[in-house]
């Protein structure tokens, strides 16, 4: 595998006429890292991938590997000489070539000896568990098998960077989880630097070393799966990471306590106590207090999984159950509290639709956002 020590993407921007598809993407890739671009469709993650691959000309910014300038909008290394591998969403296997010839495609272009090509094709097919499929044609294979061929076709060339564009989205649910596992195993074995594009937060959390959350062409947050999951940078990231209960409210009081801030937020019909854990000296703590002084309207967010059924203490609310969706281990319950505050929760105990329940919203699990920013 080709080595590099610094892979730098700085301020890469792509505009299509008036529309900015990608606004100032900056990212430093570490060697062997698995980075995921995560976001809903149209967020710019595929454009970002195209820009890095060289398939989409960038408007401004710079991509460089060590001292080699790959692309700065004026001069660019063409995609065929970047030595990056790309796995396409629809696999893009050559339908007129056998599996072996698909995998050998890049090797033959590099004018390798016949024996060397055959040897490396064999090894690559073994790596993706497709030994014995060499003479088949893509149309004779299932989606999952085609996917493996597409991966083998890339890694056989030992690319400097491997890019995967929503590779699992065309597979059925069961196969998706299997392939996810295999992708992880493959990455752990080869340590090839990887950029993975997906709209599925589960995939991103399961696979990545770092996640880049994007929306409308802008990076919303870059962090480890734990960071992005537990402390989303803003309301959008929170929403995307499964904080389904998002309520607006007015801060009635806020005070700093030993290891955090305690607020009480007036929601539509009830008051929510919130305890944010920020140690003394945490810069965010000061920022939040400052912001709360001039802006009292905030957003609160909590995951359905963190809402408890019954219990004592703060934030116990009576709510009317409007919908119950049985999902096996847990149920997906939607209830309404106060005048019109929708609460989603996932209790494991059975709940009757139409009944009244008591739910507890643990103060330490609630995130508060002012102006869409983290707080």
């Amino acid at each position, binding site marked *: 595998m080709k080595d590099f020590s610094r892979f730098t993407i700085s301020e890469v921007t792509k505009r299509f006429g008036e529309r900015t598809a990608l606004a100032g993407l900056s990212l430093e890739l570490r060697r062997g890292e698995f980075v995921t671009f995560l976001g809903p469709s149209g967020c710019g993650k595929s454009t970002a991938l195209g820009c890095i*691959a060289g*398939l989409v000309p960038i408007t401004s910014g710079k991509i460089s590997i060590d001292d080699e300038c790959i692309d700065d909008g004026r001069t660019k290394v*063409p*995609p*065929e*000489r970047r*030595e*990056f*591998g*790309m796995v*396409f969403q*629809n*696999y*893009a*296997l*050559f*339908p*007129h*070539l056998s599996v072996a010839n698909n995998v050998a*495609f*890049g090797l033959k*272009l*590099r004018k390798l000896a016949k024996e060397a090509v055959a040897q490396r094709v064999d090894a690559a097919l073994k790596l993706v568990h497709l030994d014995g499929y060499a003479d088949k*044609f*893509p*149309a*004779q*294979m299932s*989606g999952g098998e*085609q996917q493996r061929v597409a991966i083998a*076709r*890339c890694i056989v*060339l030992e690319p400097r960077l491997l890019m995967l564009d929503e590779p699992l989205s065309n597979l059925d649910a069961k196969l998706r989880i299997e392939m996810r596992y295999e992708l992880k195993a493959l990455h752990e074995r080869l340590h090839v630097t990887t950029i993975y594009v997906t709209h599925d937060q589960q995939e991103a959390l399961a696979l990545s070393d770092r996640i880049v959350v994007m929306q409308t062409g802008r990076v919303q947050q870059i962090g480890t799966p734990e960071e992005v999951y537990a402390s989303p940078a803003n309301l959008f990231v929170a929403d995307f990471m499964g904080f389904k209960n998002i309520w607006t409210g007015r801060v009635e009081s806020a005070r700093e306590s030993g290891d955090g801030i305690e607020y009480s937020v007036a929601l539509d019909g009830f008051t929510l106590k919130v305890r944010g854990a920020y140690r003394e000296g945490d810069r965010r703590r000061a920022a939040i207090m400052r912001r709360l002084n001039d802006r009292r309207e905030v957003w609160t967010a909590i995951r359905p999984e963190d809402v408890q059924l019954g219990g004592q203490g703060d934030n116990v609310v009576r709510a009317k159950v409007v919908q119950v969706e049985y999902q096996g281990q847990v149920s997906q319950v939607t209830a309404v509290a106060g005048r019109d505050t929708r609460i989603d929760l996932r209790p494991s105990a059975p709940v009757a639709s139409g009944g009244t329940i008591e739910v507890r919203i643990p103060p330490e699990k609630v995130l508060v956002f002012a102006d869409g920013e983290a707080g």
Partner: protein
Amino acid sequence: MSLGRRGGLVALLAPAVVFIVFLFIYPFLYGLVLSFSDPSGSFTLANYERFFGDWWERRTIWVTLWISLPVTVASVALAVPFAYYMRRGIRGEKVITFFLIVPITLGTVLVSEGMLTYMGPTGWLNQLLMAIGVVAKPVRFTHNYWGVAISLLIQGFPFSFLMLLGYISGISPDLERASQMLGASRIQTFLRVTFPLMVPGIAISFCLSFVAAFSVFPSAVLLGEPSGPTRVISISAYHWAFEEFNFNVASAISIVMAAIELLVISGVLVWRNRMYRGASIVGKG
């Protein structure tokens, strides 16, 4: 399956079957029988002997192939780069397509009439060529081999182009991108991916263009020398049917035409299978 449902299916099939039987199978078999009969209706090979025994008739095969094969090759060869260039759509595509379709819609006779004037000895083309000094004397573009060939190309090219364009724009652009990402230059991508994937389309467009060119009649009469150099096989068939009133020989000639077309098409399909062994599905797996 119940009997009633099967009956329903048969009823649904009936119009298509009737159509094919009456408009294709019956006339074809009728012609085949005619070609092996003498005027009294008994079996004979004389009709074929008459055609193959006379060098003047026999040579119409070569005359026709000599016009139709180069024209077909040229129109398909011209259509490939055009279709490739326009595969993702270009600006002004509608205008270009419009001008390409015009010759097809005008019909052979009108195009031939236009060519007679425009490309004739005193036509604009020759006046222009002489004015800029390319030639000293008018070049003969009409009433010879070239007249027929040019007119067939004018009508055949748009046809091959439109067919190929439809085919090539169905090839997923991701395949070219994938090839590029694997290290192939533009030319390598064309030679190793795009062209092989175009082969089935090229084969089909070649076959259809060839059949149209091989049965050339109006332009061979209007723009060629139907009494000699461009006496194509359809003129020969016409001659026997409507000047000699011998439908038996005329039928024999038609069967010979069909056999030659079948032979060329088989050749093209063998080439196609040799070039392209993958599935006919292109793009999404």
